[in-house]
């Protein structure tokens, strides 16, 4: 049977296993990825089956992890590195931005950088500081990087395969509070391209765009709106760089209204980019200004307050109402 029901965590684990099995040049590197199988167990059992030479426990040094992965890529390997949590990526930010992102251009295309940087991101798990952030816009803003985030098990499985096969560096954000959500994965049917958005629910009155952890919230919001007689379409962006504006445009031309939802602060966030481009593309189709729902311009709050900070069902529905009121 090709179709299996599994959690996002399991889908990622199976996908990494397949990648290691398929290509001997694929390596997994990171803190605690070996014996422990990662703090979220995404790499569970992989070192046991593929050895310490393929699944490499590293020193506690994020810049070192990404910097040596770059060197391994130059030698012909395809490293998948794990950054343990979102807030820990910044020691490696220099290597990612000044080196990983630019190496291909610097060499006028003569070398490739097939490196995947996996980052469990986002809040909602009651963690301490630096364990709940959504820094995706900081990476999406950097030319040379591609930034993606799956929202369900099938995408987790297949997007990881596509990321590993890409010759460009991919920042792969994993929605950590969805790790245990289950979904069906067809391990034989290859889905569409990595950087294409998908329609998670069809509707005709308004378009909600989200990615990663917020797709589930938006689907719940659309279901709740349906009960009030509002037909909401939900797009799963899947890729934050590049962004599939065509799919958003098609939807907005139909609905005339757009609300973008993400956990990251609204200010300078992905929603700003989507709002600006869609306003350019769809000005005469829009019935209301593009609205955004997201985090505030404050440090991520302590866990007891994160429910106030994170966009929930009510905040999304409120934005839906505001848009429809124009």
């Amino acid at each position, binding site marked *: 049977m090709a179709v299996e029901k599994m959690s996002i965590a399991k889908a990622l684990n199976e996908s990494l296993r397949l990648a290691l099995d398929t290509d001997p040049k694929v390596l997994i590197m990171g803190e605690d990825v070996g014996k422990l199988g990662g703090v979220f167990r995404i790499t569970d059992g992989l070192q046991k089956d593929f050895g310490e030479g393929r699944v490499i426990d590293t020193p506690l040094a994020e810049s070192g992890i990404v910097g040596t992965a770059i*060197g391994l890529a130059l*030698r012909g*390997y395809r490293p998948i590195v794990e950054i343990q949590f979102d807030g820990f990526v910044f020691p490696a930010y220099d290597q990612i931005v000044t080196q990983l992102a630019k190496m291909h251009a610097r060499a006028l295309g003569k070398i490739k950088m097939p490196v995947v940087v996996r980052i469990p991101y986002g809040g909602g798990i009651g963690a301490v500081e630096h364990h709940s952030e959504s820094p995706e816009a900081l990476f999406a803003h950097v030319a040379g990087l591609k930034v993606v985030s799956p929202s369900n098990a099938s995408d987790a499985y297949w997007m990881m395969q596509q990321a590993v096969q890409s*010759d460009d560096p991919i920042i792969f954000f994993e929605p950590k509070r969805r790790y245990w959500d289950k979904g069906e994965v067809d391990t034989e049917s290859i889905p569409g391209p990595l950087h294409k958005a998908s329609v998670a629910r069809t509707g005709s009155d308004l378009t909600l765009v989200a990615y990663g952890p917020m797709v589930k919230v938006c689907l719940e919001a659309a279901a709740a709106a349906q009960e009030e007689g509002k037909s909401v379409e939900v797009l799963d962006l899947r890729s934050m760089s590049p962004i599939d504006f065509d799919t958003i445009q098609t939807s907005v031309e139909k609905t005339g209204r757009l609300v973008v939802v993400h956990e990251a602060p609204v200010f300078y966030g992905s929603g700003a980019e989507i709002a600006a481009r869609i306003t350019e593309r769809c000005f005469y189709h829009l019935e209301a200004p593009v609205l955004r729902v997201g985090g505030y311009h404050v440090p991520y709050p302590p866990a007891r307050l994160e429910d106030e900070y994170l966009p929930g069902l009510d905040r999304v529905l409120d934005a839906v109402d505001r848009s429809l009121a124009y």
Partner: protein
Amino acid sequence: MTVESTAARKPRRSSKRTSAAKTPQSSEPQLVQLLTPEGERVEHPDYQIDLTADELRGLYRDMVLTRRFDAEATALQRQGELGLWASLLGQEAAQIGSGRALRDDDYVFPTYREHGVAWCRGVDPTNLLGMFRGVNHGGWDPNTNNFHLYTIVIGSQTLHATGYAMGVAKDGADSAVIAYFGDGASSQGDVAESFTFSAVYNAPVVFFCQNNQWAISEPTERQTRVPLYQRAQGYGFPGVRVDGNDVLACLAVTRSALERARRGEGPTLVEAFTYRMGAHTTSDDPTKYRADEERAAWEAKDPILRLRTYLEKQKLADSAFFTALDEESETLGKRVREAVRAMPDPDPMAIFEHGYADGSSLVDEERAQFAAYQASFADSAEEGN
């Protein structure tokens, strides 16, 4: 080799504290040396070298041509042909000595001043000028000569070298990798992390630190309280300090470190104790931060002069050799000058090339917009006619 560190001791609250703050480097350092500044051959118990007259002349030629190339590039910057130049003046022995120790299958990770190492690798020197002229950010294929692109961010490349070396070990190859960096870079976290990773994974990498005494205007004393080669001790691999103005010692010490790496014995830190005779780059003014006497003292240790003295004293090179080399230098200078002046600005559309290996819809969209914008000028020019 001593590993005792004065800085590791507790500072004493005494009137001597100010003088104690001076690093051990201010005293005459212990160096591996095979050729004295006076051009005398000396022996070292751990590092022997036996070169033919041809090989010695070859090293001399490499240093002379590298210095000529460097002088030409500096002049081209002054003439406005290059936006910037990072001169290697004074560091020829460190670069040629270490560069000539390498095998073809070894891999080099340079900073942005390794023009002499590039020369040893067979990289056409005119290739090095593109980034300084502003027509590209490097542009050569690193795999053609196993010479990676120049890296501007200080110390980043030491991690790339370490990762590459980890790959070499995985492949079961007996190649070695060498990472160049400066005394300023030794303060960077990436260099420390590369020491950690290379030691932990026993990577076949040689860290070649050219301590040229100055990181722009900051002296080595602002980077470290212990001699830099001693850093290696804390990571569990050997460190050695070599006279960086002695091409023979640089060759012997690097060769030994590379052989150690090939044998699977892991990394070595080589500190080449040398001096940057010119400015950090053509943008700074060393007269503002260092004394003329200091440069004069180092001029007496000139790497090229001392080998020439040795060659002449030992009658290993005659005047015909030096005359021919002078002519070769002038030819090189002329070739470099002409090549730079002939270097075209890239096509504006090239901005959109090579951002991504697999392409990007965002770049495609912006490329199309830019092309249409460019084309609008052509249209209006036609209308004007």
